[in-house]
């Protein structure tokens, strides 16, 4: 991996807003051809980090190299990047084709606007004003604008937040297609399934710092078990009880609910039911599923990803 050229290299990045430290000593390496995900709850510093990488925000300390260059020689670098901001609004009364054509004109070389519009599936809407597009279609337009310069590195900041499932799928396909051409991509998201689908590697950010980094499989592997059992019981059980069950590697809880990382659900679930019965308690909730990055985040921070409670 070290032999591949670097797409993004960050060392000791710090960004302060008055009293708040938004990014607190962040290191990051993304190689070319990789799709890298920044995960974390709202306010974790994802957008600030990405906007520094995009050369939009200044930073206070550290080094940032994009495609082997610094932002000191900015405009040339911009020719090689595609950027979609979080919740972009484009000009209301320009059509899809006009908007993409406008963005194409900023780049010295790139793809034809019609080709990109087709790629994101907006060909039937190409003469529609941006203001008349639904949120999902508008986001596709923003991605089309980011792709029309045929970038080497694509930045997507929460590309599918608030979108319907169909639009999400479509955008995932666009990103996977982009990746298949050997291009690099950095995306932020708080959807764990999105990161697992799209990203070769992810970093989990909390309070402006990376608290875990690796492939999605690797991070899920750190839980000790690839499966999850969640339960609630009529009498609240303690951690010792949960850890004593067969096949349990790590446990976490919020409210009355226990979350167990296990190696084999089919062994743990009968053991759980038997143990509860022995204590005279009954199950009020039981769910089993494959472990996800969400579980990684909860086990690292003790908090759920969405919401700050």
């Amino acid at each position, binding site marked *: 991996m070290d032999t591949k050229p670097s797409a993004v290299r960050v060392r000791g990045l710090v960004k302060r807003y008055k009293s708040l430290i938004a990014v607190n000593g962040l290191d990051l390496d993304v190689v070319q051809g990789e799709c890298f995900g920044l995960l974390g709850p709202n306010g974790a510093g994802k957008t600030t980090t990405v906007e520094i990488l995009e050369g939009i925000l200044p930073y206070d300390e550290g080094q940032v190299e994009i495609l082997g260059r610094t932002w000191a020689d900015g405009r040339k670098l*911009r020719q090689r990047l595609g950027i979609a901001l979080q919740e972009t609004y484009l000009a209301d009364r320009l059509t899809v084709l006009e908007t993409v054509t*406008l963005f194409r004109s900023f780049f010295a070389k790139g793809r034809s606007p019609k080709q990109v519009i087709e790629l994101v599936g907006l060909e039937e809407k190409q003469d529609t004003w941006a203001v008349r597009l639904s949120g999902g279609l508008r986001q596709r337009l923003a991605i089309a604008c980011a792709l029309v310069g045929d970038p080497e590195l694509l930045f997507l900041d929460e590309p599918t937040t608030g979108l319907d499932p169909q639009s999400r799928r479509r955008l995932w396909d666009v990103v996977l297609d982009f990746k298949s051409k050997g291009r690099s991509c950095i995306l932020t998201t708080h959807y764990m399934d999105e990161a697992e689908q799209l990203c070769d590697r992810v970093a989990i950010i909390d309070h402006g710092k990376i608290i875990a980094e690796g492939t999605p499989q690797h991070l899920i592997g750190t839980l000790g078990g690839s499966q999850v059992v969640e339960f609630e019981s009529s009498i609240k059980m303690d951690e010792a009880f949960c850890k004593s069950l067969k096949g349990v590697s790590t446990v976490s809880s919020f409210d009355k609910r226990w979350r167990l990382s296990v190696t084999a659900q089919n062994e743990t679930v009968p053991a759980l039911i038997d143990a509860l019965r022995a204590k005279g308690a009954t199950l009020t909730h039981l769910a089993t599923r494959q472990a996800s990055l969400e579980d990684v985040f909860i086990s690292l921070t003790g908090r759920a990803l969405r919401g700050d409670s």
Partner: protein
Amino acid sequence: MNPLAQLFLARIREFYREPSALFWTYGFPILMALALGLAFKDGSGKAIPVAVVDGPFAAERVAILSADPGLIVKTVASENASWLGGGMLLEIGGEEQLVYRFDPTHPDAMAAKRKVDDLLQRAAGRRDAVPTKDQLVQARGSRYIDFLIPGLIGMNIVSSSMWGIGYNIVEARKRRVLKLLSATPMRHGDYLLSFILARLVFLLSEVIILMLFAVFVFDVQIQGSLLWLSAVTIAGAMAFAGLAMFIASRTNNTETVSGLINLVMLPMWLLSGVFFAYSNFPGWLHPLIKALPLTILLDAMRAIINEGAGTAQVIGPFAILSIGGAVFFYLAVKFFRWT
């Protein structure tokens, strides 16, 4: 595929696809010119409504006054009856002694009283000591409409520059369009220049439409050189475009910029002599009024259109507006915030 051309096209499209922008730029000034132009077109032509109170002399007075085409004469049964919804400017009553009842603060009532009194006195045998004859003159460039049209053009230049550039830039910043654009390789100067170029096109169209309207509907004539009129108008528009860009250079709050725009525009609309001459204001205010950019523009435009002013009188205002515009642009670009 030239970026400046594309940005310019985007400005033009955004403008003509916004019906309210079209109305405020083209429709509103023409409606203003029409309404005010007609209201003040011909002050002498209007017939004056007067009332004669019934009595022994009433029939005779009605006969005398009715002979004058400038009066509409009505008989009323009793004194003061005519004020009640009658719209009368003057009531004529009394018997041996004529009694005129009118509101002295109404500008037409005094004229009506003088006219009626003359008619009745002459009919009763008064001889004028010196014979008189009225010669009505309508000098070119001295009518109210001649004064008004440059005022409306100037007002329009100010408001369309301010709203068209100032408001739209702040809205683009608020909606993070500026941020997105600044993340592309677009040259920042191209974006700002596209507003200026589009403004020039709209300016030309709005001034030409309003001028044609004035020439054909109100017979306004441009006495001076068209070249100087264009130069001064463009310099004025650029000064206000620069001012608008400066106002919009930092804020991302559309309410703030609306407030700033009104703060800049209102004093100029009131003081600079859009609708009436600023000579009506007290003398100590004049130096201040004359320093306002709209006053400089309007005085120069009126001098060219109505007095045929030439290079000598116009070059000063032209230079001031041009330099002012350049300074505002410089400041705007220096302070401009993209995020």
